[in-house]
């Protein structure tokens, strides 16, 4: 008997995507993570533009990851022109990424994922019965936005980030207000831990999983610094220099899907919070030592639902780390400095950073006038697409006895746990036409 399951339009994810499963008896004949977001072709449109225009254009690939797109772009450009930002600029960028991570994780964990575990359709519905949990999530989300406003100039599509530095530095007053909010958030983070630790277990598709994440070079566990990608495969870590990112993006056509799939040595791999924790947990400091245990998070975990817990852990960590950074900035005082002078030259560069939902690559080449000649952007959701399908296939095999509604809910929860950003993904993934 054949059976098919179709989610035409995934809710509570960013962008337009779906899931299609075809089964023959208990065997799964095809599983597809469909993407039917329109193509905006921004890489092609940015070509020929002066390097100063590029971050503002590519930022528009995705609103939720707009800091990551802007700064990966800047990192690629600085690498191409041989520009070294000052240590103060690097520290502020590191803090800005934590703001983006706090905002995005609060949105995903509280507004998109937690309602699944507690059987609500949205955070608004959740708020009716659990007002404290909903308000906690929104409060932390706002904190993430405040950090992005103070450092990046705007919560969505930062305007203050430039090749070589910042347009304007935050004032001491702004940092002091931020410090107060972070103190409150540090208190709040205890409630985050309690809430996440109390969620019912969810395990529908565990399997041996390969992970990839940027290895931070400074500022401890984080999302901005570094130029080496670490891949955890069969219990071993392999290092790939950022400039050789193509060895993780050797797209392969697969018979059941038109989507290009990223693989490393023939294996799909997962990027995102769970991948970062798996690869970089030695860089976490003591502030979250007991959180992993309270969440029952045993690494490495091949259960993608654990990505929700990993995000919650990063959320707690980022709050503490951001507080330390702001206190350090206030103690040392900000040095007034203009952006480092930039002398454009022909060349190429790659910028890899960690967007909230995983590793993001911008790789550019420029002509001698500093105009963009080629651009290659690979987003976390594009890296994840093959791994999502692998986990969906496993879930269908393991839960074939479920009725359609129960199985559909599990499949949706798995896709959502990856925190996909479908607007982003169209820049690499080959799309199928909408149903």
């Amino acid at each position, binding site marked *: 008997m054949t059976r098919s399951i179709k989610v035409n339009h995934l809710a509570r*994810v960013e962008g337009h995507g779906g899931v299609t499963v075809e089964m023959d008896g208990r065997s799964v004949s095809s599983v597809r993570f469909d993407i039917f977001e329109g*193509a*905006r072709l921004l890489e092609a449109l940015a070509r020929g533009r002066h390097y100063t225009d590029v971050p503002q254009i590519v930022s528009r690939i995705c609103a939720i990851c707009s800091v990551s797109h802007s700064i990966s772009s800047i990192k690629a450009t600085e690498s191409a022109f041989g520009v070294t930002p000052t240590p103060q600029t690097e520290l502020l960028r590191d803090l800005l990424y934590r703001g983006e991570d706090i905002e995005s994780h609060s949105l995903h964990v509280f507004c998109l994922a937690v309602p699944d575990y507690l059987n609500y359709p949205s955070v608004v519905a959740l708020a009716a019965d659990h007002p404290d949990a909903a308000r906690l999530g*929104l409060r932390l989300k706002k904190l993430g936005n405040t950090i992005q406003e103070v450092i990046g100039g*705007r919560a*969505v*599509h930062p305007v*203050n980030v430039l090749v070589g530095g910042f347009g304007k530095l935050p004032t001491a007053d702004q940092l002091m207000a931020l410090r107060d909010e972070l103190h409150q958030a540090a208190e709040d983070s205890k409630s985050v831990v309690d809430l996440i630790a109390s969620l019912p277990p969810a395990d529908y598709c565990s399997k041996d999983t390969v992970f990839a994440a940027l290895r931070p070079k400074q500022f401890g566990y984080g999302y901005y610094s570094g130029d080496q990608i670490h891949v955890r495969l069969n219990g071993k870590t392999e290092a790939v220099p950022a400039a050789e990112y193509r060895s993780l993006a050797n797209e392969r056509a697969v018979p059941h899907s038109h989507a290009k799939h990223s693989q490393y040595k023939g294996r799909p791999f997962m990027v995102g919070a769970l991948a970062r924790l798996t690869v970089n947990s030695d860089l976490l400091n003591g502030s979250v030592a007991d959180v992993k245990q309270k969440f029952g998070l045993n690494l490495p975990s091949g259960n993608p639902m654990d990505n929700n817990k990993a995000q919650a852990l990063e959320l707690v960590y980022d709050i503490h780390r951001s507080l330390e950074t702001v206190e350090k900035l206030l103690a040392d005082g900000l040095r007034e400095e203009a952006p480092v002078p930039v002398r454009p030259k022909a060349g190429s560069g790659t910028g890899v950073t960690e967007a909230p939902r995983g590793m993001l690559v911008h790789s550019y080449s420029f002509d001698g006038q500093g105009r963009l000649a080629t651009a290659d952007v690979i987003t976390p959701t594009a890296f994840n697409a093959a791994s999502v399908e692998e986990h969906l296939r496993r879930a269908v095999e393991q839960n074939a006895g479920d009725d359609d509604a129960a199985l559909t809910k599990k499949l949706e929860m798995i896709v959502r746990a990856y925190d996909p950003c479908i607007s982003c993904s169209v820049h690499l993934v080959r799309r199928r*036409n909408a149903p």
Partner: protein
Amino acid sequence: MAKPTLGVFGLTGCAGDQLVILNCEDELLELTELVDIKDFLMASSGNDTSCQLDVALVDGAVLSQRDEDMLKRIRERSRLLVALGTCAVWGGVASLDRNQDRTRLLEDVYGEMGKKYDSLPARALHEVVNVDLSITGCPIEKDQLISAVASLLQGDPPLYPKYPVCTECRMREYNCLLIERGEICCGPLTVAGCQARCPGLNVPCVGCRGPADDANVESAMNMFGEKGIPREEIAAKLRTFAPAWGVNV
């Protein structure tokens, strides 16, 4: 009286304007007491996808047949349709390619497969359906969104400035980046409402809000000319976010 019904929809774009709605952290739960959000796919499952709506907020531009069909369907079921953000109001960054060969662009990014995609040149919502209210910005400003909701609840359209960013910038006494540094600042031509955020950060305006009705285009062009900035360069910069600026090159 029943609460007014609201739908929030995204066509092709970065979802930034829907994100600004979710970024109203202090107002979001209060807002849901005043309006009944029936259909908001990015934030909720279990939506009513066929009911009549008093207000539909739509972000993104029309870039595919699928977008066009979806927008027409939203128009049919909504009393008021609001274009949210520069993509919806003007076409946005994706409309950069209006003068380029779309088939070639698709092939550039997607290879041979590009030919098969459902992909159309970017259009603003008003080029496809009747639009009742436009809230521009990339992304929209939170205070303009909230004032729009408050005004619509009272039955009035909100009032937005028609003057350029330049006016806001002078009111705040920021240094003029065009006059003092000779940088290409789109502030004289771009519609206000952002409180001149970028010039306030020593960063020139990139025109992300689209054209101002009351801009004095010729005087601005003369000012650029005096600084030795070629017209083509300004036009290219302006086209980043909106295709139509009334600037002849």
